[in-house]
């Protein structure tokens, strides 16, 4: 077995230990379903419009429900993990392994996300379908959007990994940097609301931002809103951004660790 896959299996096994977090996550999802279900009904019902910025009410609600179903997979904890590694000195145990530091964390993240995918997606879909009229817009679109979410996870991970490198220089900026990063990501990834709701000029700019391809693009694939060409193009752009952020990580990581002073072993 390849070491990378072994790390994924190990992290998956570890994730199975926390049964309680499964129930808490499911409860969180249900609350999110309820809020979005009634919020978007109220927004659309306010002036009786059937379509807002190209999305019908039912599509908008499903957009938000699908995000809630899938966002556990895309989520990463890397920023906090790197901060702890640097602050507590646990980075020493990772650097003693003959492996790249970032890739060790990526494998662990993939293992945890695999567990979330395995344990939460199907129950979430069932609850959303029974109580909140969630539906698929075609099995093909659904499967392709799940694949796109996998690329989103990689993209999100490498963006967070780069941001987390700040910890090597400015350990006390963890919360501030994390807050700005999350606000930026939540708004410009389409997690708070669909990016169609922004003015046209902004939507043009969003095409060049990596955040667009983290949530908005996979959900638009799920809704069947992208053509085959756009879907292929979105995967190419996601892959390009992943490579770009991985290269940036490799470039800065070597330099930062060379000046790293560490903490008592």
């Amino acid at each position, binding site marked *: 077995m390849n070491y990378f896959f072994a790390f994924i299996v190990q992290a998956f096994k570890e994730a199975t230990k926390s049964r309680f977090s499964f129930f808490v996550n499911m409860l969180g999802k249900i609350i999110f379903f309820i809020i979005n279900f009634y919020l978007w009904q109220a927004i659309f019902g306010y002036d009786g419009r059937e379509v807002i910025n190209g999305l019908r009410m039912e599509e908008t609600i499903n957009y938000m429900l699908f995000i809630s179903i899938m966002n556990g997979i895309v989520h990463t904890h890397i920023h906090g993990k790197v901060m702890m590694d640097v602050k507590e*000195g646990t980075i020493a*145990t990772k*650097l003693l392994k*003959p492996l790249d530091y970032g890739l060790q964390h990526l494998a662990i993240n993939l293992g945890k996300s695999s567990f979330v995918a395995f344990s939460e997606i199907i129950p979430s879909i069932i609850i959303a379908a029974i109580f909140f009229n969630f539906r698929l817009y075609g099995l093909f679109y659904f499967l392709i959007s799940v694949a796109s979410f996998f690329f989103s996870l990689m993209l999100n991970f490498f963006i967070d990994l780069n941001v987390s490198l700040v910890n090597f220089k400015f350990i006390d900026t963890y919360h501030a940097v994390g807050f700005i990063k999350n606000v930026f990501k939540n708004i410009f990834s389409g997690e708070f609301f669909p990016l169609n709701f922004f003015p046209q000029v902004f939507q043009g700019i969003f095409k060049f931002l990596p955040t667009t391809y983290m949530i908005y693009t996979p959900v638009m694939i799920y809704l069947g809103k992208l053509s085959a060409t756009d879907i292929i193009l979105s995967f190419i752009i996601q892959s390009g951004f992943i490579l770009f952020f991985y290269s940036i990580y490799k470039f800065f990581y070597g330099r930062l660790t060379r000046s790293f002073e560490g903490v008592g072993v």
Partner: protein
Amino acid sequence: MHNNIIEVRGVSKSFKKFKRGDSLLDSLKSLFYREFETVAALKNVNFEVKKGEILGYLGPNGAGKSTMIKIMCGIIEPDSGTITALNLIPSKDREKYVKDIGAVFGQKSSLWPDLPAIDTFRLNKEIYKISDKDYKKRLDELVNLLEVKEIIKSPVRNLSFGERMKCEFIASLLHSPKILFLDEPTVGVDVVAKQNIRNFIKKINKESGVTVILTTHDVGDVESLCDRIIILDKGIHVYEGSIPLLKKKYLSYKELIVYFENETKNIKIPNCEVVESEPFKATLRVNISNTSMSQAIQNLMEKYKVEDIDIKEETIESIIGRIYKSGKK
């Protein structure tokens, strides 16, 4: 490099430390203006480690031991000087170099806390590309030596500290490293487990020929394990040599515990200091740099009626403590 497995030449390392007062005003001031000071952790350190030896790397807190260990493990780079280990430069060839080293840090676990230790061992098997046959053989050997057959199947979180340390040893030795770094391996471990761990270190050193570099505050570890010790203080080596040589060089007194036939008071012997005195017993500290033990005993016997005498040497702990305090070479 001959017989040396590690060569350290002129290594220095300093850290920038934020200087801050302890008042509320100082804290507020630090928001706008910060002063930094440079702390030299290592100053022109030179030494070598021979293949197969057990080296004790000692020093008081803040002496620079951990910094040196991190440099030797390839985790951080020195500011100046060179270090060669296994014919590699640890920080530059880290991924290649760490394949042949193992490390146990008493304060930092390499085990996955929520999973049984056996899961970490299996992961290490993949990381170090150990064949199924070698893995099974090595694991069986280590498990039997440390007597942890049942323990390795329980989640690490549920193990005692001593049990966890034994599992840390297995995790660090599965890939048969050539150098083993041990940072406080017996800290917080009970007497029996401590003895087991010491015996284990001796055995693997003897049988596998693994070179061991040990940092510890436990003099028992040093006395029972180390062929040679280096004492570091404020980033400078203040002693390098064997324990017998340390005694020869630094032993300044021996103690005589004297049992008298009669009640004896006001004991006075040249070059001896009375440390403790009871009616029929006294402890005398003999300054051996000024007089010999035989002379001191002769003086004692001539003046007092002595029933029995015990001789006690200054402990290694006390000698090392004196070296720490004086920082002398």
